[in-house]
């Protein structure tokens, strides 16, 4: 089954736009057939991926661009969050251990953990000076 054309958002690297990205992602997930609860979780994963870009790839600098590409591929919803900032490999981060998290006074690392719990697949790759975080949610495995 062929997917529908992708929706592409290009927004400045500022946290005030997170709510806009979240709203669009949620509506696209609902439009792709996910229930309200799952669509909300997918939107949160997109929020987290975009936050990572702003805070880590761009180190909080505004005036850069974040591209969010949302595509209903039929059996799955695929969302790419793309930046041209520093390469960040979240796989290199220590795994979140919630029992130790508080005592270590850590504040980061929860976002990737959350993304992995919500989505069926979370991948990071670097191509032509762009970082691409791909989030995939399969329609057959909802929840």
């Amino acid at each position, binding site marked *: 089954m062929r997917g529908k054309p992708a929706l592409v958002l290009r927004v400045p690297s500022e946290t005030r736009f997170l*709510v806009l990205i979240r709203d669009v992602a949620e509506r696209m997930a609902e439009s792709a057939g996910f229930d309200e609860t799952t669509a909300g*979780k997918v939107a949160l994963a997109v929020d987290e991926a975009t*936050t990572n870009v702003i805070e880590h790839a761009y180190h909080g600098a505004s005036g850069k661009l974040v591209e969010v590409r949302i595509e209903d591929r039929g059996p799955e919803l695929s969302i790419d969050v793309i930046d041209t900032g520093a390469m960040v490999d979240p796989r290199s981060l220590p795994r979140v251990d*919630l029992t130790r*998290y508080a005592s270590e*006074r850590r504040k*980061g690392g929860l976002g990737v953990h959350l993304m992995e719990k919500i989505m069926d697949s979370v991948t990071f790759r670097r191509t032509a000076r762009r970082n691409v975080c791909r989030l995939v949610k399969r329609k057959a495995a909802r929840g």
Partner: protein
Amino acid sequence: MGDLVVEARDFEDIRLLYPRGFINAHTVRVFEGELQRTLKDGRFKIVVNCSGLSYIASAGLGAIMGSIEEIRQNGGDLRLSSLNETVRNIFEILGFNHLYRIFPTESEAIESFLSGGASL
């Protein structure tokens, strides 16, 4: 900014916080600021009433995690009440429901402090 406001009230020695809006990387400073103000005031028994909270991202959960040790070391606890389904889902996904006491209503959370219930 209308994205998040946090009201604070005291009931006996318990600080009640009412975040209204959403907590993400943009608004977390507002929430974190109110938590820090609470600790500075020497209030370590805290109830966060989430009835006005539409959603919370990891930034907000990090703010809670970042202050919980100080709160518990001072004999207090941070307890949550009145979570909507979205917020409860996020807490459960991360296993926060095993780290924090969560109550259906604010009055039950307050009662848990008054009756001397321990933290998790």
